[in-house]
């Protein structure tokens, strides 16, 4: 990780500070916590299920992230372009990769902090019964990777425009596609005309299947590799987009 040295670390620290000093961060955290709690307890009837597990908690994360992560990511590059600070940043002795990684990990740290603040539900579950520890760890790991994947999408759309609203909308649309790609109505629609390998291929793109198995506590290397490759691919594309916009 030679990339993540001096300059990238400086960008990381700056971005983390930018999050925690802005009111957006607190709005984000409060909405995230209230929304997940509401969905878990009131919609999924956590107590009435009489099961000491966190399925009814984690099952909502893909949907909550779908809206909230693009909101947290949209400023990353769009703001730099709008205010012109991108010119300052990219004329400092820093590579584009270092800048991208610094920003990405800063935003991911912020999302991880929001996720960590859901810890009371773990305490609640442990108090009520004897939950499967592996499933909880897997659930949190899956949720973290999922947020990273959404974030990488948001980073890409933020690099594409100077308008944060456009970045948000594009990011939600791409995220939504990745979310529902494996859903039966979508695969069913494809199955009418597409060959099976294509249907399976599209379904394998879905966040859901990979997130589901992690949530059950199954740490499959393929799921980890899936999320890692989505993140790497999106960040790489963001790099290409930023490079091209400079050259144009």
């Amino acid at each position, binding site marked *: 990780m030679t990339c993540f040295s*001096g*300059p990238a*670390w*400086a*960008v990381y*620290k*700056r971005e983390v*500070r*930018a999050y925690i*000093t*802005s009111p957006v961060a607190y709005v984000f955290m409060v909405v995230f916590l209230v929304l997940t709690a509401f969905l878990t307890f009131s919609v999924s009837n956590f107590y009435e299920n009489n099961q000491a597990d966190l399925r009814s908690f984690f099952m909502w994360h893909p949907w909550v992230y779908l809206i909230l992560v693009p909101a947290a990511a949209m400023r990353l590059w769009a703001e730099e372009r709008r*205010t*012109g*600070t991108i*010119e*300052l940043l*990219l*004329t*400092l*002795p*820093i*590579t584009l990769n270092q800048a991208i990684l610094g920003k990405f990990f800063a935003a991911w740290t912020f999302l991880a902090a929001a996720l960590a603040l859901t810890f009371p539900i773990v305490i609640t579950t442990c108090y009520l019964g004897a939950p499967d520890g592996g499933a909880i760890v897997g659930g949190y790991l899956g949720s973290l990777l999922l947020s990273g994947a959404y974030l990488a999408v948001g980073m890409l759309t933020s690099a594409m425009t100077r308008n944060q609203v456009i970045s948000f909308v594009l990011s939600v649309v791409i995220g939504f596609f990745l979310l529902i790609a494996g859903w039966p109505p979508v695969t069913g629609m494809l199955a009418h005309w597409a060959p099976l390998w294509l249907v399976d291929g599209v379904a394998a793109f879905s966040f859901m299947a990979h997130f589901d198995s992690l949530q059950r506590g199954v740490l499959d290397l393929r799921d980890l590799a899936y999320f890692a490759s989505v993140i790497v691919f999106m960040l790489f594309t963001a790099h290409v987009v930023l490079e091209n916009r*400079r*050259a*144009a």
Partner: protein
Amino acid sequence: MLEVRDLHKRFGPIHAVRGVSFKVERGEVLGFLGPNGAGKSTTMRMITGFLPPSAGTALVNGHDIVGDTLAAKREIGYLPENSPVYGEMTVLQFLRFVAEVRGFKGVARDARVEHAITQCHLEQVRLQAIETLSKGYKQRTGLAQAILHDPAVLIMDEPTDGLDPNQKQVVRAMIREMALQKVIVLSTHILEEVDAICARVIVIAHGQIVANGTPAELKARSPSGRLEDVFHTLTLGDEPVRKVG
């Protein structure tokens, strides 16, 4: 110390910079003069490594900005147009950030930052968020960022734009102070500024250099001996031709 070699920039069908070449030695303040849209900013953005040139390159203290970008960037201090800064940060946080990206740590970082703050007279506002500062202070924060690492080459895009006459005086005095040890290139469309601080002037129009000389040499080109008249004939003369074509 700064050598610009046949820089070209094309934005799609627009050929914005067409073969700009010049050399600046240490101790020289070079004024980049030209109407808006002449290609001043684009040229500076290529020299500082923000925009990749379509052709040509620049050697910054011997480092090729195209081939050895990072090394060249380390030699440059750059104040972009309108001095973009992270508004939510305080002056101190911002300068520390720039120092860290430039590789200074701990005590060395703090010493650099303090020196830049003193040099740019920012002591009073060091703990203030930049977005709450007046334009003059904001511009000086941008300048502090540019000179923090004591660069060999200082490039400033319209450093006095939008400042009041007093603030302009302060910034010009600072530039003059630094002039001896550095290569300084600044763009402007204020003609009096050229007279006040520049040892040499390059007039650029439609992406090409149309004049290169001392302010006195340039003035001698016009019967009136006024820089304004020279500027008009050099840059306005062919505008109708462009509109027809």
